[in-house]
């Protein structure tokens, strides 16, 4: 029973060893030529021009949350679409209900004015 999990254990060990090597080796054998840009906390090739901690309009938050909701909805439809031939009418009706419930949520946020920027 427990032997079934052996591959999983091996995977964990391999992952840990790989991570350890990736962290330790560069500090041992890598060249070190520090400059200002390289010593930024996040080295992205861009020089930061302002502090990251600043206020931003709360509308962004609204848009992001709504995006996630309706994005997940579409993700949910992929496996359903693949199996639609086998699910037949039953699957179609079930997805209809799923979309109906989401649509009610959509109408709600729309009428509440969540899509208006101001």
């Amino acid at each position, binding site marked *: 029973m427990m032997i079934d999990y052996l591959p999983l254990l091996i995977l964990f060990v391999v992952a840990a060893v790989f991570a350890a090597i990736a962290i330790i080796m560069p500090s041992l054998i890598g060249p070190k030529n520090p400059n200002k840009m390289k010593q930024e906390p996040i080295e992205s090739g861009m020089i930061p021009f302002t502090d990251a901690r600043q206020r931003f309009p709360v509308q962004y938050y609204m848009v992001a949350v709504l995006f996630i909701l309706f994005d997940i909805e579409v993700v949910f439809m992929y496996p359903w679409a693949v199996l639609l031939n086998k699910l037949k009418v*039953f699957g179609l009706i079930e997805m209809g209900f799923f979309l109906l419930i989401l649509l*009610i*949520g959509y109408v709600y946020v729309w*009428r509440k004015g969540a899509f208006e920027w101001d």
Partner: protein
Amino acid sequence: MNLPHIDFSVITPELIVIATALVVMLAEFVGAHATPSPTRSHRIALIALLGLVLAALAAVAGLGRAATDIQGMLVADDLGRYLELVVLLAAALGLLLAWDYLPQFTKMHSEYYALYLLAVVGMMFMGKSTELITLFVSLEILSVALYVLTGFHRGQLAAGEAALKYFLLGAFSSAFFIYGAALLYGDTGSTHLVDIAARASGGFLTLAGLALLLVGFGFKLAVVPFHMWTPDVYQGAPTPVTAFMSVGTKAAAFVALFRVLQAAGVSYATWSLVLALLATLTMTWGNLAALRQSSLKRMLAYSSIAHAGYMLIGVTAGMQLGLSAVLFYLFAYAFMNIGAFAVVSLLERPGYHATQDATIDAARGLFARKPLLAVVMAIFLLSLAGVPPLAGFFGKLYLFNAAVQSGWIWLAIVGMINSVVSAYYYLRVTVLMFMTEADETSFLRSPLSNATGLAIAVAMVGTLLLGIFAGPWLQQLGQAALAFAGS
């Protein structure tokens, strides 16, 4: 590929409540009352109430017919039907309390009633789940809805604190629950309670899994030592929500606990001792802490902890004897506790920003001001204390009787001592109402609205009738319990 067969008659009441919740969500956009007003709130509440009544009718119509479906994940037996009825009763009473309470402090009426109905759905599903993942999902449905409802009074700091505490601790306990489910799955290879009962090894995995599930349940039931959130949350939440969740969550979690324990795969001797100790701790701590409270809602919160302890005595007594007693107690508790909260909601000072919490002093001289209301409140409190011939007395009688019959004599004695202790703080409020003069600390919201009056009247009649017809009603519930224990 085999398509799952779905018998929708198993979940008719739930479907009705879900449909109502969706209608309620859109109701505020329809018609002339587009702007927030008490009238609009009443209209939405009426739709929600109709949905609850329809669902209750569907539940009653299903009595006597047991069916398992949705791939064996849900069962509609009489136990589940009665649980639905308790939850719907508590929800309807709580809704009547919110009728005039809600428009006083918020403009978000659709949201309140939609979330409220979804919490109801979660509780109903929880009591009918026969599979751990379904159980977990329904637990989350009810929890998430209640987290939001707890913080609904946005102008108050206490409400925000309560919602955050409830959310963080609730999420933590959910993690315990799902970890327990995972261990049981690891032990048996299935999340269905039937399979777990058949295949559980009874070894370390089973015990650890069951213990973790018990922590999750203990949190929802507010069992000591998992009760820390209860006073703050009950105090910070709007009073109608407190009234509803103190009964509904307990009912759903107790029935689900019975289902899990029946399938535990661990001997009765093992888990009953743990539950007996938890019951002792819960009763004693709840009652002792309630003695020291000066806020009415906090006092009732600790009293609800104590009552969870009494009901745990019934769980300890086992399926045959304890279950019908616990079911009876849940009905009695729904009437008397929501009734008491209804009167408390009238003692709170209205206002958006001001603290609304009612202290015990607010009840001063209530008898001189509103004699009938004082008498009714006294009856609710006496019933909670367990004075005959009220519903609460018979509830405790049956619980202690079940304990004695199954050999837990010391537990019954602890329960009785606790009842005596609890009488002190219930009577303290009664004495304040009847034997002191009204002064500047006393308060009563007036005039008494029809909806609140109706809720109090229903709770009152229920408390009295359950006391008078206790025997026949217990027999009725006993049949459901027997059908469950025998299955």
